[in-house]
């Protein structure tokens, strides 16, 4: 499906949710209100005309040092792909510095759990409703979010405590029927 058609459909289906669009080298980026992301994604996934059944990735960006940037500090780009229809979609939501929150989509795609954890770990976007929003690439004692522009590349942290993983294990055992 053409990006423009997708934009029109989303604008009609979710009045007020679509904030704008931008051409990203042939792929239309559709900018959405952060609070509507889960509703839009569930529609894109389940509607037979859309059938975006794969979440390719979530890319989080800190725009604070971007020249002439106006608007929210953080952005999260959701890349979706439909294997049956072949088309792709690119959605962007933004979050302000003082309250960097975006609703989770971890209940909609299995890999969104880790993708959101990575965005949280690296940039510091908090995905509300995420079942296990903890660091994934950096050490669990790490302070700060290294891919923020105000985190100096030379700042090191000496961290040594083991991650027990028992917090995740307790949840998982319960899900698996072990009381």
């Amino acid at each position, binding site marked *: 499906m053409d990006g423009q058609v997708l934009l029109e459909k989303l604008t009609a289906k979710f009045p007020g949710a679509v904030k704008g669009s931008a051409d*990203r*080298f042939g*792929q239309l*980026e559709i900018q959405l209100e952060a609070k509507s992301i889960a509703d839009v994604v569930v529609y894109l996934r389940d509607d037979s005309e859309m059938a975006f*059944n*794969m*979440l*390719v*990735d979530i*890319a*989080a*960006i*800190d725009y604070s*040092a*971007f*020249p002439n940037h106006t608007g929210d500090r953080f952005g999260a*780009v959701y*890349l979706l792909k439909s*294997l049956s229809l*072949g088309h792709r979609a*690119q959605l962007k939501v933004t979050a302000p510095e003082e309250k960097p929150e975006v609703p989770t989509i971890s209940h909609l*795609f*299995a*890999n969104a*759990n*880790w993708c959101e954890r*990575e965005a949280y770990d*690296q940039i510091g976007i908090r995905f509300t409703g995420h079942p296990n929003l903890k*660091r*994934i*690439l*950096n*050490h669990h004692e790490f302070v700060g979010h*290294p*891919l923020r522009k105000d*985190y100096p*590349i030379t700042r090191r942290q000496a961290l040594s405590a083991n*991650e027990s*993983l*028992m917090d*995740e*294990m307790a949840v*998982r*055992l319960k*899900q*698996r*029927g*072990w*009381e």
Partner: protein
Amino acid sequence: MIDTKTLLPRSSQGLDSAKHQEKKDLVMVNLGPSHPATHGTLRALLALDGETIAAAVTEIGYLHRGFEKDCEAHTFQQCIPYTDRLNYVSAIINNVGFCKAVERMLAVEVPERAIAIRVLTCELNRIIDHLVCAGANLVDIGALTNFWYTFNVREKVYNILEKLCGARLTSSYTRIGGLSRDVYPEFDVEVKAVLKEIRESVKQVKTLISTNRIFLDRTKGICVISKERAISYGWTGPTLRATGVEYDLRKSDPYYGYQDLKFDIPVGTIGDVYDRIFIRFYEIEESIHIIEQVLGKLPKGPVITADKRVALPPKQQTYGNIEGLMNHFKIIMHGICPAPGELYDFTEAANGELGFYIVADGSKNPYRVKCRPPCFMNFAAFGEMIEGSMVADAVANLGSINIIAGELDR
């Protein structure tokens, strides 16, 4: 304690979650982070009921070195060597993936010959990646002989790559706008000879394992993942195709003339360890077909664009005239500066979709590079896949999803 009968069914369907079990009978065991079978530093915490995995959770990040942050502090050209270290088993595919994305941002025309050589080297890399994966996977389940058959020919491919770019693993072979150098004169003869040996070694390995009872028992029906679940986890590449989904970016979103080449997409049936190992052998065959077709009609011409914004001028010009010298100086000192913009671009790497989301702000450094490594999605499913299996099956499964910590942790 444990009823031995529950250990007998070797399915990955999992324990009967409806019945209530006593947690105190479980034993917590760490698989990794430093374990010969993890091939890198990956950690899984297993709750064991006897030898069966009742639940598993994983931890990654042991090889995290800040690839994305490093890219922001370096110029676009300086990022290329960092991409070698993503999937270091098939480094050139990463080089190509990154350069292709930047070239699209700059709208640079890459010469035909450079594209053909990129396809050739990518397919050679895909072959060795698959050979390493299958070879190491087979070692993990006790079939050591196959390892020598696969690694012997891999070494010969490395000899070619070494002659081509001076390095074995960390090739940094591409440049923005083309390649660092052309192929050497005997390249096609040597590639044809090595392809013959690869075919032979794949045949030998297949002969050794395809009717081997131990191999079949260790791999068939082990750690099955359904199509739907694999797609929901964002799996791509051979592991997704092993579940029966015919999805290959070289066919679905073709680039670099893959649409004009004749090759098939092998698919598996149920998505078990067996399918994931065998699909790689079939893909090696297809890559050999591709290389043979490209070698037969290798275009002539330069291997790097003449676009003065991105390519260094020939040395005669740098030292021979002021324009050449200035051009050289500009590119070294001021770098390659794409106009502000954002782009997601992807290639079919050996493990699946390798994507780069690049934000440019008009300067010589990328403002943000987000790498989408195929392994990340594969390993996200690992815990779920091994639950209900035995510890030894977890090891067999880990090898079959081909986790490369370099791109997993970045």
